[in-house]
């Protein structure tokens, strides 16, 4: 009988009634603790959201989006430069980073041997793990220094570097969800591999890839650190990429750490904007992603 030599953890065996009460109590306590962990995990989210919502709504108005900042201390004004800057740098960063990410994912899935695929996947993981402030330092050394000036372009480059691993990972996964039979059907028709990928496999995984891009956009829209010494920030609206450019997260940081109440209010309002944007994208895309993975044949 194995009970006699069973691990001491469980005690003399299930028939030992005298231990049962204590074990049951331990079980109940532990389960309560696990429930507590779940509560502890969820409560901060709710608190943060509540505060962002209440504080942000109080200060949110159309002026915020459309007006330029006013001299410090005065009330009113807005964060229009930040809104425009975020739109420009996020779009540019996405446009630059997405093709590289998708092509790299295609290399991993469709062309690389086992070793090559593992190496590149690992490298993409490495890139994903680089702190965003270090990416900012890289963009500083690479672009700001030679250009002798801060610029929206440098900021966009930093954002592009950050979005690549996000899109690459998801594209990799989405390409893997396309069944081998689809590729074989194309090959058997005499379609060269590259065309099979571009005209059959990519369209089949297009929705998932777009989802990945949206997720990446949500992520880089909220990034501050890589922009501090690349785009620097600007109090005016500018669309020139060779000039310093403002961004919502930058503006929130400056205003939140500043001394003026009007600044703090605007920081909350801008945070609300940012959180709404980011949450909307994240929620939508994770929802779609989960559905697609479950539909795998």
């Amino acid at each position, binding site marked *: 009988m194995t009970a006699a030599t069973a691990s001491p953890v469980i005690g003399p065996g299930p028939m030992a009634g005298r231990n049962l009460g204590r074990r049951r109590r331990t079980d109940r306590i532990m389960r309560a603790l696990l429930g507590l962990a779940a509560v502890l995990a969820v409560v901060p989210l709710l608190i943060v959201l509540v505060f962002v919502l209440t504080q942000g709504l109080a200060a949110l108005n159309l002026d915020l989006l459309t007006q330029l900042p006013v001299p410090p201390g005065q009330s009113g004004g807005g964060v229009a430069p930040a809104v425009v800057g975020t739109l420009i740098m996020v779009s540019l960063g996405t446009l630059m980073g997405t093709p590289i990410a998708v092509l790299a994912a295609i290399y991993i899935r469709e062309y690389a041997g086992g070793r090559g695929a593992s190496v590149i996947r690992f490298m993409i993981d490495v890139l994903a793990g680089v702190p965003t402030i270090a990416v900012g330092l890289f963009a500083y050394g690479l672009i700001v220094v030679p250009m002798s000036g801060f610029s929206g372009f440098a900021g966009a480059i930093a954002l592009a570097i950050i979005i690549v691993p996000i899109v690459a990972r998801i594209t990799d996964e989405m390409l893997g969800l396309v069944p081998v*039979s689809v590729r074989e*059907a194309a*090959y058997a028709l005499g379609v060269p591999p590259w065309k099979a990928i571009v005209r059959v496999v990519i369209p089949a995984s297009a929705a998932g890839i777009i989802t990945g891009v949206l997720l990446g956009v949500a992520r880089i829209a909220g990034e501050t650190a890589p922009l501090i010494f690349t785009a620097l920030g600007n109090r005016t609206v500018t669309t020139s990429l060779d000039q310093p450019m403002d961004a919502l997260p930058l503006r929130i940081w400056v205003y939140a750490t500043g001394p003026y109440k009007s600044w703090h209010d605007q920081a909350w309002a801008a945070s609300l904007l940012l959180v709404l944007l980011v949450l909307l994208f994240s929620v939508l895309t994770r929802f779609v992603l989960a559905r697609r993975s479950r539909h795998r044949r």
Partner: protein
Amino acid sequence: MTSVTDSDSVSTTAQTRVAESQRPEPASAAPGEVASREVTQGVAIDVDHLSAYYDRHRALREITFSVLPNSITAIIGPSGCGKSTLIRCLNRMHEVTPRARVEGTVRLNGDPIYGPGRDPVHIRQRIGMVFQRPNPFPTMSIYDNAVAGLKLAGIRDRKLLDEVAERSLRRAALWDEVKDKLRTPGGSLSGGQQQRLCIARAIAVEPEVVLMDEPASALDPISTLKIEELMDSLRASYTIVIVTHNMQQASRVSNQTAFLTVGDDGAGFLVEFGDTTDIFTNPREQLTEDYISGRFG
């Protein structure tokens, strides 16, 4: 009954066979359906000492036989004997699997399909394949699926595409069922219809050979019957090789039969090849006799 090794005598028999099959009008599925005469020719396939490997493991050993033009050849044998591997060697799909390779010769109408300078993509245009599980392209409509081989090759002539679509779908006995819903997704059809769509797709590019790997095994009996009728009508224009685990199907449909089984070394080898009637009523080898009468496999 022909012997496996004597390819010379087989090809002279082949010539007489061709003459015989060319005389009557090709059987059309419905009267007045096709106004032009279908004279696209099937070609002969000569397999000579073909061995197939997955990495180091030999899956097929020294297979030699010849397929007559405009005939149906069935490949039968127990599970795991390498039937699918063999048929995939005929259109160079075997090498799509990583580290898979082939030794020996396969000749299409006298031209070897393996060799330096031989483009597998081009070969696959000349040899069509229908797979065990129907695999229409998921993002394409019925129409687009039917002409996928042409569209992907860059043919854009709308009128030509329309006509090829209709012709292929008619020949696959699918036209009447789908002519009103050509733009609906290919995946919306039933299994049997999807398989006929795949057949239409394969013949739209006017291959010289059509390979079918257990085309009806995933289908219901009625669809199976339709596909068998289809094979019969396609014989006039194409050389057909089918893999089937259903012996009754092989005896119903084919002109010649190849019987494979697994040898002691784990590789499949050709036990016997000959006219279907001979194989099934008066086989030369004991192994064949045993398999036919259900004593193994």
